[in-house]
Structures are given as structure tokens and as C-alpha cells.
């Protein structure tokens, strides 16, 4: 028994050493960001250059925009990088956020099955497309997770004039309460429509019978903003390191890195620090 215990403790010690070796880094900051920037692979692609230049390790916690802002509001992140202008306004108005800068934009697309039962393919009007989907009662996967994409989807339904829900008898409206990737997997699985940011859509590897059907509506613009925290409200946050990341993202080097990120030859994000959309 003692031998087993000793061996167990030795294993534990080794494991503990491994864990602490992993966590041994100079300075680190926590960036609360969105699933789209993680699932599209952008942050993993550009952040090593920042770390190499500054020695600051960036720990990305990828959540929906709503959750990311809540995480920062509780003081558990040092800065945020999100994409829901209305939620950001509220975050800043409540005194949590300081300086906000746009780093890039792309757009949202409405994707759906190639068979396109609601006949929305080729359109450039998101509200009209949503109206057709509702009229046809064609399956639609909703995020329902208070993310930036979820917020835009709800705004589009408001413009249609109705918020579908299972409770009001809309069996075709599937609120999955998950991230963008989960929503695309669900849509691919049941041949449903959904609203996706272009970055996640282009890099998504399980498209199955899904296809981008509606794009090019100015109302589908998708802006990514980096927001620093207010030093008075969040005195413990690592403001200096956070500012260096924010500065780098809008710098020539950071903007070039964002613009250079491609998937299958397509640029996913358009750098826009110099000329915010």
C-alpha cells in the first residue's frame, strides 16, 4: 500500500511540475473575445506575432459577445474584443469600458440548404429573406446565446415584425443556445437556415449541404471592436499590457496580420482601424 501511495505521489508531483512548467510565462493578459474570432482561427494566427514582439502572452477566453462583456464586467478579463455595437454601447455607458477602437470588419451571411425550400438564394435583402423563411416555415437554427450574431438575428426578426419561437407554435425555429460552430453543425445536420458571420462560415469544415444564400446587404455588416476597461471601475486589470495589445491590433503590423489571414485563398477579415466602417 505504501509503495502504491508513494508511486501515486511521485506521479502527482511529476504532473504538478508539468502543469507549472506550462503556466510559467512572463506577463499575461486575459482577452475576452467571441467564438467567431476563435472558431475562424484568426486570433490563434495573429497573436503569436504580438507575443513575439512584446513578450506578453494573451490568454483568449472565447465566449459569445454578451458573455464576454459580462466576464469583463465582473473583472475577469483585461480587455475585450467583440462584435455587437449595441451591447458595447451599454457596456461603456455602464462605466466598464474605456477606449473603443474598431480593428476589422466583414459581414454576415444567411446560409441554408442547397435545396433552398424558402427560395431566398441570390437575394441581397436579409429582412426579406427572413420573411420568406418564416412564411415557408423552413427550419431555421437560432443561436439564442446573447452573442453578437444572436443580437443581429433578433434585430432582423424585429424588422420582419415578429420574433418566432417554439412557444408561439413556430416548430421550424430551433433555438439551440450554442456557439456559431454548434449552430452550423445543427443546420448542416437538419438542413436548416442560419445566420453566420463570414469568418466562421468560410473556415467551417462541416458544411455538408449548406451554402451561402444571401449576402451583400449593408444591414449585415459585422464590426469587431477592441475595448479597454475603465481603470477606475476595474483597478486590478492589467491596463498597460492590455493597451499594448489594443495598440498593436490597430498598428500597421497588427492590421497587416489581420488582412493577411486567409482560408482557402479567401481573406476573412478586412482591417479597418484607419477607416472604421
Amino acid at each position, binding site marked *: *500500500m505504501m*509503495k*502504491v501511495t508513494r*508511486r*501515486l*505521489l511521485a*506521479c*502527482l508531483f511529476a*504532473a*504538478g511540475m*508539468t*502543469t507549472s512548467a*506550462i*503556466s510559467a510565462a512572463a506577463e*499575461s493578459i*486575459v482577452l475576452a473575445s467571441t*467564438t467567431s474570432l*476563435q*472558431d475562424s*482561427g484568426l486570433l*490563434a494566427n495573429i497573436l503569436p506575432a504580438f507575443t513575439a514582439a512584446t513578450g506578453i*502572452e494573451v*490568454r*483568449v*477566453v*472565447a465566449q459569445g459577445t454578451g458573455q464576454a462583456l459580462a466576464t469583463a464586467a*465582473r*473583472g*475577469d478579463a483585461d480587455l475585450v474584443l467583440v462584435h455587437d455595437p449595441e451591447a458595447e454601447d451599454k457596456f461603456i455607458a455602464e462605466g466598464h469600458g474605456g477606449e473603443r477602437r474598431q480593428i476589422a470588419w466583414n459581414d454576415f451571411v444567411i446560409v441554408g440548404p442547397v435545396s433552398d425550400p424558402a427560395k431566398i438564394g441570390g437575394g441581397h435583402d436579409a429582412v426579406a429573406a427572413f420573411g420568406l423563411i418564416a412564411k415557408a416555415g423552413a427550419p431555421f437554427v437560432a443561436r439564442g446565446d446573447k452573442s453578437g450574431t444572436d443580437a443581429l438575428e433578433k434585430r432582423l426578426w424585429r424588422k420582419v415584425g415578429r420574433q418566432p419561437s417554439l412557444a408561439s407554435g413556430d416548430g421550424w425555429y430551433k433555438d439551440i443556445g*450554442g*456557439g*456559431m*460552430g*454548434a449552430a*452550423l*453543425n445543427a443546420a*448542416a445536420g437538419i438542413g436548416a437556415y442560419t445566420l453566420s458571420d463570414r469568418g466562421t462560415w468560410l*473556415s*467551417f*469544415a*462541416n*458544411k455538408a449541404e449548406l451554402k451561402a444564400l444571401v449576402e451583400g446587404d449593408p444591414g449585415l455588416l459585422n464590426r469587431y471592436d477592441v475595448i479597454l476597461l475603465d481603470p477606475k471601475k476595474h483597478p*486590478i486589470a492589467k491596463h498597460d499590457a492590455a493597451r499594448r495589445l489594443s495598440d498593436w491590433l490597430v498598428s500597421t503590423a497588427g492590421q497587416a496580420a489581420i488582412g493577411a489571414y486567409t482560408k482557402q485563398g479567401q481573406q476573412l477579415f478586412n482591417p479597418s482601424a484607419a477607416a472604421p466602417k
Partner: protein
Amino acid sequence: MTDFWTTVGSGEFVRIVALSLGVSLSATGLAVLLGLPLGASLAVLRFAGRRPLIIVINALLGLPPVVVGLVLYLLLSRSGPLGELGLLFTPGGMVAAQTILATPIVAALVHRAMNGLWTDYGGALLVDGATRLRAIPTLLAMGRLPILTAALAGFGRTISEVGAILVVGGNIAGYTRTMTTAIALETSKGNLGLALSLGLVLIGISVAVSATAFALASGDRR
């Protein structure tokens, strides 16, 4: 498949496996340190509140990981009561979460094994003049294999768990990303084949850990 070999061959993947094992083995070790004396005491000693405690520990076998994650998240948040520890989004926080999940399993299984042994040999041990407290080490030595099973059950809970560590650890690349959270992430990227391959690697690691533990225990019998 190319994706799979590129991933498995990368330093990032080695870190993920090391962190998974490090966190889960640490949590299992802590769960054994807490659960072993607790389970044995419940079987051997007689004290007030023993029966309710047994019921509570058995009920905690079904503790939902995501709830443990959420409660710990609120406690460890910088604006929470334990925020000063700075454990949120760290491997330490993940070890805490998994220890909470594994301890009842170890305690309940050790209690069950010790209970049987106590029924069979308790009388003899007491006749030999040992006190109940002194009888515990003898019983633990006799129940070595069931105890190992208890530890492995605790390890199984921790290495396969995703709900609690996703919330408390944050799935940070290169820092708190484990096998299970990486599998969840690859699934959400639509890389289903890669996610499945990683899942098979995870199962292989579980088998290897279990085999090693049994080899150590039976080697000890010589």
C-alpha cells in the same frame, strides 16, 4: 487524416495531453487524499451524523459538472469571495473543480469496499485488541485493489469531464485547453474527423493510465 497527424505531432498537442493528465491526475490525487480517509472512517468509525453523511456523499455521485463549474466560477471570479486567489481561468482552478467532482466518487467507493471488509474482519480485528481507528490501516491494505478501482473511477470522471473545466478554465489555447475542451472546440469548427481522432487518443490515454495503475498495484504484491 493529414489534419490529425499535423495536430498530434505539434507541440501544442503535447501540451494539451500533458495538461489533461496533469490536471486530472492532480485532482484524482487530491480526491484520494480526501476521499480515502473519509470513506474508511464512514465504514469503520461510528459517529453522529454518519448516516446522513453517507447519503449526501452517494447523492453527490451525480453532481452535475456544469453546476460545479458555475459555482466555482462565481466564487473564483475577481468580483467573487475567492477572487483574490487569482485561480479563475488557470489550471489550478480546474484542479479545484475536478477535485470536487471526484472526491465523492472515491469516498463512496472506498466506503463500499471498506464496509464489506469491516463486516468480514472487523470483529476479528477488534478481538485482537486494535481500536477502530487503528484497524483502518490494516483494512486499507487488505482493500488495495478496490481502492485502486475507486481512484481510477475518480480519474475517469476527471479526464472525461468537460462541463466544469470549460467554465472555470476558459479553454485558453496553450494554457487551459485540455483534450476534452479541444475536442469540443474542433467539433464547433466543424472538424468532426479531427475531433473524433482526438477522442480516440483520449480513450487510449485512459486505457494506458488504468493499465499502468494495475501493473503498479500487482507489482507491489510480489
